[in-house]
């Protein structure tokens, strides 16, 4: 027994010694060092590393680039845990456009470091999206918006032009689908989009409703606005597509599944993000050179062009030991020159308006000119006002839309029920 006691006592001493060394080591790490989480793999990570290295050279501050999970839901969970534990391990976070509302209490107000002379150059909708209770909690880094892809060759063959309204899209898609199927192309579909029950459906459905003038589910004052005739009309039209111009399988399509159908030459129209452009025009793509892009159609009456705002922001953690340095890194990475470099190297869509008129950028990525209109009309998901409840709001919304599209429910009663649910969730629209 004596041996045993002595052994444990010694073990305890060693453990204490090691822990002490650890504390000393942490205290000894003197020179300022930052850690940034941006991208997980491929060109995204490489570009970030290059940008960070350039800033690092000019300021003499060492920066570690921390790789994060590729899936954005996994990233969301990881960031929540890091921020909830008040950990200073990561100074700069790359966050999705719908996260500022949830993360705001843990983020630094960047307007202390980045003045309005700079922020005025950005798209106003993006700066607005990242401003929570008067604090600018993140800087827009690159952006995204839903756009309409079409088969230019097929439209030309049938003498059609890219649709202005959703009703025109429906008619054109139906006509070409029927004609192509009659010509032996039995798999041809009119229109593919994202209708699986997930965040992507929230984006698609918000575009339909907003372009019909049906609002944004919850308005900027926090009022639930989803139960209105325009929203019903938009979703009624969308529900009529399933089994007509869109395959029933679209109810389980995400971005990649719809791209699979479109890129294999089996669809006339596709709603997707700008990333599908370069892939569709890659050397091995069967529809290379046959694709056109335009802004998404609008509703016929009271309608306007729309596109759900996507994209990524850079934010500084409130628990960072060097917030001023970290904010400077953010300022540099989101600056004109750095965004220009990223746009030319890998067609990341800039968040600074002037870059869409920059000759070098337009030469490298000619379709940015078309996208500008989409970004200007982009509609933000109601994540700012709903804050930490956003994920639930989005889920209730996409479940309701999914039930409408699959024919389980009629649009009018389903939206009425959704309205009740959201009002209850918001505790009387107080959020």
């Amino acid at each position, binding site marked *: 027994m004596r041996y045993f006691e002595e052994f444990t006592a010694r073990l305890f001493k060693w453990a204490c010694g090691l822990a002490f060394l650890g504390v000393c080591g942490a205290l000894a790490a003197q020179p300022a060092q930052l850690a940034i989480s941006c991208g997980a793999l491929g060109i995204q990570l490489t570009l970030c590393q290059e940008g960070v290295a350039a800033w690092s050279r000019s300021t003499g501050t060492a920066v570690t680039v921390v790789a994060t999970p590729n899936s954005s839901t996994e990233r*969301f969970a990881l960031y929540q*845990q890091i921020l909830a534990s008040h950990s200073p391990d990561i100074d700069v976070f790359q966050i999705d456009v719908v996260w500022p509302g949830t993360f705001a209490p843990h983020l630094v107000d960047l307007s202390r470091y980045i003045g309005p002379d700079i922020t005025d150059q950005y798209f106003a909708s993006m700066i607005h999206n990242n401003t929570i209770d008067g604090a600018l909690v993140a800087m827009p880094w690159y952006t995204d918006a839903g756009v309409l892809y079409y088969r230019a060759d097929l439209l030309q063959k049938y003498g059609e032009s890219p649709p202005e309204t959703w009703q025109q899209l429906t008619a054109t898609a139906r006509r070409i689908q029927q004609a192509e199927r009659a010509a032996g192309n039995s798999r041809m579909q009119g229109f593919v989009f994202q209708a699986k029950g*997930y965040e992507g459906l929230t984006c698609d459905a918000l575009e339909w409703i907003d372009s019909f003038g049906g609002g944004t589910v919850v308005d900027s004052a926090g009022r639930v606005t989803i139960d209105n005739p325009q929203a019903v009309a938009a979703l009624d039209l969308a529900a009529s597509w399933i089994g007509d111009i869109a395959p029933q399988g679209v109810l389980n399509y995400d971005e990649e599944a719809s791209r699979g*159908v479109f890129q294999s030459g089996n669809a006339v129209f596709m709603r997707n993000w700008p990333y599908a452009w370069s892939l569709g025009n890659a050397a091995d793509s069967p529809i290379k050179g046959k694709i056109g892009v335009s802004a998404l159609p609008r509703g016929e009456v009271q309608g306007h062009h729309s596109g759900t705002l996507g994209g990524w922001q850079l934010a500084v953690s409130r628990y960072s030991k060097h917030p001023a340095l970290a904010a400077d890194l953010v300022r540099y990475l989101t600056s004109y020159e750095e965004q220009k470099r990223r746009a030319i190297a890998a067609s990341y869509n800039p968040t600074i308006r002037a870059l869409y008129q920059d000759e070098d950028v337009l030469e490298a990525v000619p379709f940015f000119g078309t996208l500008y209109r989409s970004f200007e009309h982009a509609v933000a998901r109601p994540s700012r006002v709903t804050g930490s409840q956003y994920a639930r709001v989005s889920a209730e919304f996409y479940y309701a839309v999914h039930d409408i599209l699959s024919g389980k429910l009629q649009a009018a009663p389903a939206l009425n029920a959704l309205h009740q649910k959201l009002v209850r969730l918001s505790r009387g629209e107080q959020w």
Partner: protein
Amino acid sequence: MTSLHQKSHLHKKRVRWAWIFLAPVVLVLALVAGWPLLKTMAYGFTDASLIDPESAQFVGLDNFAFLLQDPYWWSAVWNTVVFALSSVLLETVLGLIIALALNAQFRGRGGLRAAILIPWAIPTVVSAQMWNWMFNDVFGVINHLLLDVGLIQAPIAWTASPDTALLSIILVDVWKTTPFMALLLLAGLQMLPRECYESARVDGVHPLKVFFKVTLPLLKPALTVAIIFRLLDALRVFDLVYVMSGNNRSTMSMSVYARQQLIDFGGLGFGSAAATLIFAIIALFTVVYLMAARVGREN
């Protein structure tokens, strides 16, 4: 008297040493299994959120009361039970047939035994995505084959239609896990005494009768273990369902429900309550099954 005293002293000493030797294992188990489990259960009684767990308030049984009233929780339970029972049943039957075939003597048996394990060796996420593409209604190979053969007139949206979504998930699980079941049962088959079969052959008993009267009863212990393994696994299914149809409520399993509440919605308290209930349901299944198996054995 002294000898008895000594004996009990010796016994005590042995017990003490046994505990000392067991202590590291008990400690590790308590740290990696017991503590997280207790912590999860404790969170289940609070309104903790993932983004700010420190401001959690004790809310008693509120989470559980809400869970039991939530129709989506019950549909998740129903989906999981349907999935678990039907996939395990199919896997057992198919696995047994394959195991019997592989137990016979023939050339190339070793190679075949290895080959059959391939579906099981592929990571679930990979095979789920692969099947998802094969099930696609426009470019999927399954619809293509069925159309060519003439079994269906129009392509079926396997993973999208509420009628076939759960069925597709079950089929993929059967494809993936039958080899595992076959392997477990094959191991059981090879332990069976040869004498029974030799005497059956001498007596000229019909092979089917041999199977039902000799093989099946003797295989029962192996079968029991294999089924309980699979059932526990199937009841907490997550990856397959999540990859093939995400958070879709018509196929959502209990684990997908708990993950959505805990991670997507940041409801640490509510999600923990759901996780606790999953634990209770799986424990209940295990107890009922083991009791049924014991009763079966005693009879």
